[in-house]
């Protein structure tokens, strides 16, 4: 199969950071208790449908709401439902079910799953997908007729599966797709194509993964609804807003989601989970996550049951003498994990432990700068591994129009222009012209800023203030699908905040 080469303008390639995840995979035991949040991944929170004191099996549905955009939630360990508690996850309060595990590793197989999935009717496959909980994965979910995304499967015109490792730390493709799994993956793609027959499937792989490119071009040869792309692994290639213009060469409706233009972006793991659900009948109860960053003794992958607390996962993995910061998923956009009793949920890909480096280096600006990363080439950093730590490396200064942020911006806006408007309180519709709503919060402008200005924060603040003034993102000229459903989901957290304010 022919491999198309694509890249986008802007962006920045993170290379040679220390603490990269190795190809090793660990299995982690089932903990004594699992805590399962009733909102995981994409969609609304679902009501608890089991009862306290009931014995449940792993893979049994304990939360489900067919009326709103959501996916079912499963028990992930065999045991007894102990209680339903309210936990706070990254500022949002979520109901969570606590299950006391009995330590067995079995799970309830989904009805109707079969190796001969091709003989199943599409409806049945969709039902299996929905019931397995796979549909909540990734940014916009997988569309089924069960209201698991904002659009229906027949509306999907493009499915983009991206396997481009563009972040500072990336999951290893050899771990995810090693051995037989690559065939499972292809099978998963075929299932998805059956569910969404109008869709073309686009598989994007980083052009640094030469072996996988050749493997795929061999395996996928002859499939006419599938295209293979080799992308340059520049951050933030993994964003829908960047993937869609790069691969489909069409404009992204900024301020809305990819589903609104009939595209679904999936990760490799999601496709594998699809395969697991439909062929092996395994509901989504386990994830593979990676441990990245210099804070870990060993940077490995791990297979973990959903609902396991992070404490349990990280036990004995962190270097003893280091002060570290735990970050979820991404070093640039991930949230800091302040509470290690958080349970793992469907949306976790990676746990990072970065060194909190408070050391004050002596005349740093005169050092040649080994072990350091810089967008500008004033550091001799190509030779050695670069450090990834949380020191700010400099004081905030007035912005000097160096233009770095504009060069790296993946959506071609001028971040510092918007920054200076917002900083001075010029909240006008000019900002919309300047493309403030195009910003995808990739934080890259912040990363490269010479003056250490939190540009991305300012842009976000600008967006909030604009919405406060009633200047919402304009709808694009073309038709969009499922916009109303999307808006209803998007506005939810804002409403919740307002209520809080009133009560306090």
């Amino acid at each position, binding site marked *: 199969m022919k491999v198309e080469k694509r890249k986008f303008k802007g962006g920045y390639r993170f290379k040679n950071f220390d603490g990269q995840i190795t190809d090793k995979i660990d299995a982690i035991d089932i903990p004594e208790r699992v805590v399962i949040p009733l909102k995981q991944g994409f969609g609304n929170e679902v009501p608890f449908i089991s009862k306290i004191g009931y014995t449940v099996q792993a893979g049994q549905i304990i939360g489900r709401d067919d009326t709103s955009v959501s996916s079912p939630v499963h028990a992930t360990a065999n045991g007894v439902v102990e209680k339903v508690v309210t936990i706070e996850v990254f500022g949002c309060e979520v109901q969570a079910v606590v299950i006391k595990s009995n330590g067995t590793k079995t799970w309830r197989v989904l009805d109707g799953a079969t190796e001969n999935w091709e003989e199943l009717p599409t409806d049945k496959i969709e039902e299996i997908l929905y019931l397995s909980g796979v549909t909540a994965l990734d940014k916009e979910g997988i569309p089924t007729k069960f209201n698991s995304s904002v659009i229906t499967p027949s509306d999907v015109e493009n499915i983009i599966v991206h396997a481009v490792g563009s972040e500072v730390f990336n999951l290893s493709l050899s771990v995810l797709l090693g051995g037989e799994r690559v065939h499972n993956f292809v099978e998963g793609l075929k299932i998805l194509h059956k569910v969404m027959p109008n869709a073309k499937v686009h598989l994007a792989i980083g052009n640094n993964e030469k072996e996988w490119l050749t493997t795929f071009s061999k395996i996928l040869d002859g499939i006419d609804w599938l295209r293979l792309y080799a992308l340059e692994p520049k951050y933030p290639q993994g964003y829908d807003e960047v993937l869609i213009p790069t691969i489909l060469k069409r404009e992204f409706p900024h301020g809305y989601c990819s589903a609104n233009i009939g595209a679904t972006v999936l990760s490799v793991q999601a496709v594998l989970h699809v395969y697991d659900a439909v062929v092996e009948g395994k509901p989504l109860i386990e994830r593979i996550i990676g441990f990245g960053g210099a804070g870990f003794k060993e940077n490995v992958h791990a297979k973990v049951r959903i609902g396991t607390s992070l404490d349990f996962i990280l036990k004995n993995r962190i270097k003893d003498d280091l002060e570290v910061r735990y970050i979820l998923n991404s070093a640039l956009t991930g949230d800091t994990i302040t509470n290690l009793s958080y349970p793992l949920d469907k949306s976790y890909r990676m746990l990072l432990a970065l060194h909190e480096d408070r050391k004050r280096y002596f005349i740093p600006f005169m050092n040649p700068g080994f072990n350091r990363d810089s967008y500008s080439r004033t550091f001799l950093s190509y030779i050695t591994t670069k450090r990834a730590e949380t020191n700010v490396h400099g004081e905030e200064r*007035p*912005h000097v129009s160096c233009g770095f942020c504009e060069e790296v911006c993946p959506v071609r806006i001028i971040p510092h222009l918007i920054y*200076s*408007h917002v900083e*001075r309180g*010029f909240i006008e519709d000019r900002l919309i012209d300047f493309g403030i709503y195009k910003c995808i919060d990739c934080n890259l402008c912040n990363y490269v800023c010479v003056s250490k200005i939190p540009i991305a924060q300012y842009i976000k603040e600008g967006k909030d203030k604009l919405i406060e003034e009633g200047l919402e993102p304009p709808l694009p000229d073309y038709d969009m699908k499922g916009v109303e459903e999307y808006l209803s989901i998007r506005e939810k957290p804002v409403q919740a905040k307002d209520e809080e304010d009133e009560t306090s």
Partner: protein
Amino acid sequence: MGYLLMIFLAAILTHNIALTYLLGMCPFVALARNLKTAFGMSIAVIFVVTLTAAINWPIYHLILLPTGSELIYYIVFIVVIAASVQFVEMVMERFFPPLQAAFGIFLPLITVNCVVLAVSLFLVLREYTYIQSLVFAIGSAIGWMIAIVVVAAINEKLNLVGDVPKGLKGPGIIFIIAGILALAFMGFGGMVAIK
């Protein structure tokens, strides 16, 4: 032709009416804070300066000089300027409302603007012919426009990124910007000479 071009360039670059003769500073200070206003004002100035130069030259050379009454030419010039501006404004308001909205609103501000009177006076002092007068008038007004528009743009930029001390905001910083601009324009010195 070459001489006309020389007058034109001299009026813009080397003998810029705002930066070398320091004229038209009142509206300069007031309007150089906003680019849109500065632009509208300077268009109006171009129009009025040319118009009044075109009227004042014949009045001086055909009426005042022959009758030996050049002593009152200040009065005549300023009255003609005031009246013609008012007249133009009325005509424009009545017959060309869109034009009026775009730059007619600046017309009343120009009535007592040094630039307009100064151009008329320079015509007399330098003994230009009619065509030369017109070219000089347009050139001077364009020179003024360049100065005010550039300063206004810098001012807008300062609104965005600057941190000007409190007491210096407004006129003070405009003067300093204009000073540096005048300094830079000295580089054109000697490029073209006027009579």
